[in-house]
């Protein structure tokens, strides 16, 4: 199971909130990416948190600098709307792109990216919020409802040709109270692609709870790392002991 650090970025600062709200600055993207790399992180996700609003991704200059010193996979998302945007992200040095809002607007973009660059470079992203007994898909960094059901949508994304799925619980995001295990179980039961579980990591107990449901391909962690509650090494050692991996 990979450990991914997720850096949400706004105006050249890493920011962090709770349930995508009350965003606070927590540091510089380059310094933090390099720090996590030196701590043996498996992968780094960079998300432009305001890009969908402005209809463009503003991270390429950060990506170009980061890949000079960070030699693990880098995944970039936020505001990528066309094959040409994806081309620019990959040229800046990204290994994969994350697509959410653009796919909800037009699912064909997934197939277009896959046929041009290969499925391995597309991470489909779902931001899910629980409403009564179902989870609804949100876009634009948790701001916009779509009326789409998460399970149906995850299958649509898979059929369209994503290489991986990033699943984030908006309800648990930033709360450090653990992953939304019911949501994870629901999506995983029907998924045949690598799953990245995000939203809610607080302590190693959250990993234990997750592993009792399933072993995802990866976990995405933000707050607990950003605020120094735990180190990458501690998380990886815990997983190694737990899984014998």
């Amino acid at each position, binding site marked *: 199971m*990979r450990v991914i650090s997720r850096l949400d970025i706004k105006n050249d600062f890493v920011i962090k909130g709770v349930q995508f709200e009350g965003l606070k600055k927590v540091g510089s993207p380059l310094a933090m990416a390099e720090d996590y*790399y030196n701590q*043996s992180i*498996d992968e780094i996700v960079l998300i432009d948190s305001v890009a969908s609003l402005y209809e463009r991704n503003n991270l390429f200059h950060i990506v170009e600098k980061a*890949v*000079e010193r960070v*030699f*693990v*996979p880098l995944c970039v998302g936020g505001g990528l709307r066309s094959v040409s945007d994806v081309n620019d992200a*990959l*040229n*800046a*040095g*990204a*290994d994969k792109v994350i697509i959410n809002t653009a796919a909800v607007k037009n699912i064909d973009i997934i197939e277009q990216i896959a046929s041009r*660059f*290969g*499925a*391995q*470079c597309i991470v489909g992203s779902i931001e899910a919020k629980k409403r009564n007994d179902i989870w609804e898909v949100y876009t634009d960094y948790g701001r916009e409802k779509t009326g789409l059901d998460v399970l149906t949508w995850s299958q649509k994304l898979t059929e369209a040709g994503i*290489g*991986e799925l990033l699943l984030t619980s908006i309800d648990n995001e930033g709360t450090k109270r653990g992953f939304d295990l019911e949501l994870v179980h629901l999506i995983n039961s029907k998924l*045949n*692609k*690598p799953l990245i579980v995000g939203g809610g990591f607080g302590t190693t107990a959250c990993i234990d709870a997750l592993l009792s449901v399933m072993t995802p*391909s*990866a976990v995405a962690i933000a707050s607990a790392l950003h605020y120094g509650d735990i180190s990458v090494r501690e998380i990886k050692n815990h997983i190694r002991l737990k899984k014998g991996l």
Partner: protein
Amino acid sequence: MKSPRVAVIDYGVGNIRSVKNATNFFGADALLTSDPMEIKNSDGIILPGVGAFHFGMQALEKSSLLAPILSAVANRKPIFGICLGMQLLFERSYEFGQHDGMGLLEGEVISLKEMRSDADEIILPNVNWLTVKSATQKDRPTGVAKLLSSSLSNKEPYYFVHSFGVKASNKATLALANYNGVEFGAVVGNDNVFGTQFHPEKSSGQGLKIIHKFLQSL
């Protein structure tokens, strides 16, 4: 020491900037190039690439790079294939139909699903950090292949992302990796031809070490 001239082949397939960054990290004079003369004048070749096999072969042919690469390798120039670039070194692939490769190494490229009978169980692509295990070979490797094998870690993992893998001859298999019970060629080579299924340029210090060794060998 004079820094070696490395030709990183630019044929429009995937993220080649990272490969250049990794070589630059060691002060090498790496050139992203699609110029046959640059290939001829280089000390060594890196062939990167991601995506489908036939697109890769077509792209090499279309940019008139296949013949210059083959001729350089025949003249004993070292070549280092990465991911798809490594798969292209082999005789053939069965990705989207049967397609011929460069035929520099003995073996073929097949879906990881077809390497196992209970194939439905396996999730693809294989996106993972995996350790590699040296293969038992009848003939010990020579040349660059031997040198680079010695820089492999048997403890630290490397970053893989692929759905197809190589089944190489014993002679060409330097190290194996195992994904959910499916064993495939992770490090391959013979003499001046070398390749890794994983991305050394994305595999932290243990990956950079292999690239460093390659540069030192030139």
